[in-house]
């Protein structure tokens, strides 16, 4: 039986209270995703409320679109339907922090910044630093599998998420994984949900592995004459016992945006350890710079904050390229050739992992779509990918922002979606292959 908005509203308010559900025109307009307005914006305060809201939406055939702090709303295809926007920022409790076990359990709406403030007192860290991380929710970082410079040393959410409580499409609250740092009990359900954009379940609570903060840290910039030299330096750093925490590549535009000295390309390497080891490793990096006739410069402790801000703010369009570390220079050349010299391109990335982030001022969909298709053809040789991480609705309508997924894996992904969300309740249409 279908219901009117009034009775649906009554049910939602019965669950989350009058202040937690709104069908106010202005609120719904503000919560629109790619121009599609929801009928309701609902802000659950507990996991149980979240589950009940999803259950009702499911039974009524409504589409639920989860959101955290809203950093990644321009990721993925425009949603097929938007009926209820679920604002998860109300789930903001740190449920349990066990510093002696280096684990923490948080609700999905806790921001990485809020958690960092708590962990800092115990000199511990959750080393996830995607651009703008401080104000992003951990649920959002998990759902989008967003990573930052520190992934070089610590991996991504995939490596740090131990357990997850989530709400299935029909409202069933489900737990996967464990609360301890090592477990292989049953299937690795957390892996399936990381990066799934909430399309198999809405993340409610996360148990995470923490790391100790390094006692000392140093960061140095290597200004280099060409991307070929940069690739060579990266190869030598990788093939050494150095344990850098970060190794980011910055093109000339990125160097300028960060207020750094001009160069064709720069590598910024940070080392975290005990004082003596940091100095010894820094000396190795400096020696490597000398070998290629560059002069390493020591950066202040504030550099990574600047870098984070520059990345979080740059460009209406951001592309995420995955290629091989050994094809870095060639890929950079191709990016420039595809996008043209005057597109306002800023390129950064985790060079040793073959990952690049391309920010553009250009947002003309037809021009961009053509360039992206060309880049996709290029990285296809190494099974790489080009994903539109941020882009206008028009761009993400004119091409698939995820790019192609091979038929074999895609068939399994479709089967998973069909199994767990046959009615298309969860974030329909935004993920790969229109899932």
């Amino acid at each position, binding site marked *: 039986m279908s219901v009117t908005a009034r009775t649906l509203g009554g049910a939602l308010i019965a669950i989350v209270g009058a202040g937690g559900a709104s069908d106010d025109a202005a609120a719904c307009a503000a919560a629109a995703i790619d121009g599609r307005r929801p009928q309701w914006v609902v802000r659950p305060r507990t996991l149980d409320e979240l589950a009940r809201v999803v259950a009702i939406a499911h039974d009524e055939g409504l589409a639920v679109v989860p959101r955290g702090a809203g950093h990644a709303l321009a990721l993925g295809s425009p949603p097929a339907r938007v009926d209820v926007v679920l604002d998860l920022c109300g789930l903001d409790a740190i449920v349990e922090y066990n510093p002696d076990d280096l684990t923490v359990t948080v609700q999905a709406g806790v921001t990485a910044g809020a958690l960092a403030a708590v962990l800092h007192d115990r000199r511990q860290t959750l080393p996830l630093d995607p651009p703008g991380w401080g104000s992003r929710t951990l649920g959002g970082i998990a759902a989008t599998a967003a990573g930052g410079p520190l992934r070089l040393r610590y991996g991504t959410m*995939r490596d740090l998420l131990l357990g997850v409580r989530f709400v299935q499409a029909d409202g069933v*609250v489900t737990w*996967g994984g464990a609360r301890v740092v090592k477990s292989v009990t049953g299937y690795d359900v957390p892996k399936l949900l990381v990066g799934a954009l909430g399309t198999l379940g809405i993340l409610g609570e996360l148990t995470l592995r923490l790391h100790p903060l390094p006692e000392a840290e140093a960061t140095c910039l290597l200004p280099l004459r060409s991307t070929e030299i940069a690739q060579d330096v990266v190869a030598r750093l*990788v093939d050494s016992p150095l344990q850098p925490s970060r190794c980011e590549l910055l093109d000339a535009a990125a160097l300028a945006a960060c207020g750094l000295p001009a160069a064709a390309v720069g590598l910024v390497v940070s080392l975290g350890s005990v004082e003596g080891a940091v100095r010894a490793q820094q000396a190795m990096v400096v020696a490597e710079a000398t070998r290629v006739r560059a002069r390493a410069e020591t950066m202040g402790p504030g550099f990574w904050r600047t870098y984070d801000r520059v990345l979080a703010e740059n460009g209406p369009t951001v592309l995420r390229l995955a290629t091989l570390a050994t094809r870095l220079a060639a890929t950079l050349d191709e990016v420039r050739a595809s996008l043209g010299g005057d597109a306002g391109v800023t390129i950064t990335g985790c060079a040793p992992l073959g990952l690049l982030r391309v920010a553009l001022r250009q947002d003309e969909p037809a021009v961009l779509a053509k360039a992206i298709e060309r880049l996709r053809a290029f990285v296809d040789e190494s099974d790489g990918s080009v994903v539109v991480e941020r882009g206008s609705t028009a761009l993400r309508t004119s091409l698939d922002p995820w790019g192609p997924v091979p038929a074999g894996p895609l068939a399994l992904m479709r089967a998973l979606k069909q199994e767990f969300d046959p009615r298309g309740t969860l974030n329909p249409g935004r993920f790969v292959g229109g899932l």
Partner: protein
Amino acid sequence: MSLTPRFVDEMRAIVGKDAVVVSVEGRMTYECDMHTFYKGAPDVVVLPTRTEQVRAIVQACRRANTPIVPRGSGTGLIGGAMAPQGGVMVSMNRMASILEIDYGNRCATVQPGLINLWLTNAVRERGWFFAPDPSSQMVSSIGGNVSTNAGGPHCLKYGITTNHVLGLELVTGRGEVVRVGGKTLDRPGYDLTGVAVGSEGTFALVTAITVRLTHAPEAVKTVLAAFRTVIEASQVVSAAIAAGMTPAAMEMLDEAIIRAINAGTGAGYPEGAGAVLLIELDGPRAEVEVQGERAAAICREHGALSVSVARDEAERALLWKGRKEAAGAVGRLTASYLLQDAVVPRSKLPHIMREIVAIGERYGLLIANVFHAGDGNLHPMICYDDTRPDELEKAKEANEELLRACIALGGSVTGEHGMGMDKAKNLPLQYADADLNFMFRIRGVFDPARLMNPGKLLPTHPACGEGFRPQRPRLPEGTWV
């Protein structure tokens, strides 16, 4: 179940005559893994050499509605690589090559039958290694490691198998060859690689694996400390973590194990020691030096009877000697034991060690412990006398009680061995009906006919059956139409 001669001929046509085992004595060698309680010989064993053959095998089995059981080296500890329902066992021993080593991109692609240590041996000269190091690494296959998501002493720092797998080539239960993940990162879509690792052959047969290679550390430092009690040694684990250390490994041996080792080759552990803690640090030389000193200091502060720091590789090998012999040395304590690998939060180690002693006393059984203390991964060995009636039953009961105690502390049923037949029944200890049902349904997506390694990992349980409906949240009454 028995297979028709026609089916066996079909297998021969796929893999060749010399790659099919049907004789009783031949099949018996495949009837169990290292957990010898669980026995079940397959009706036929096939040894393919190519992915295409594996696909043909799976498709033939689907047509014949026959179970398919993968097997690597058969060194699992869980009743995994055996065939309780008969059917076809696919041995990966002849798919054991290194397909590619790509130093520039820090990875290698191998076939599933390759022995774990052989990969490290192949890259060691160039300064690299494959980080997952289960104690069986000299004989266990990488395919088996992927299947169980194997760990090892050094996964404290480096992570378990899943953290090192970049991509897989699978032949799914649907009979299709699917390549998931690969050398480049962040592929769009669900992380099928992540969920397939540790699925114990219940989704698919793994026919190729792309793994991350890790650069060898600049320096390694090993510290060995002896304590009066396991409790004291356990407190050192928490203290080291509180001090911000991330050792590569932290291994503990209790009094019974020390006694057994000293009675044998004699690793020279102090007589009268109630526990030995082995701490290994690796990384940049200066870091390792400082952390090694700190580890030694923490041990002394916690009342260590003795602290030794290895000065060179020979001394390091000596300190590890006892640890490596531990499993074998248990043979001097008992002819039979039950082994499990539950996990507790590491801060709860002192608590669980007291509990283990209490359980042992209650059942009148010796429980020897050698384990990965740094991540709270226990390995209690419950010794029993198999010539005495009831003793095995008592040991099983003690084992279950211990497992429940670990879960009650917020722990996990298995840290690295996996589920197999042995622990499938324990899955409901850790997961509610809805959680079990979610897992059951994931499996159905990869293997709709449920022919892949049946009877493993998932329990016989209502929530692991078709048509089960987990409880949904309560919805508002009254206003609701």
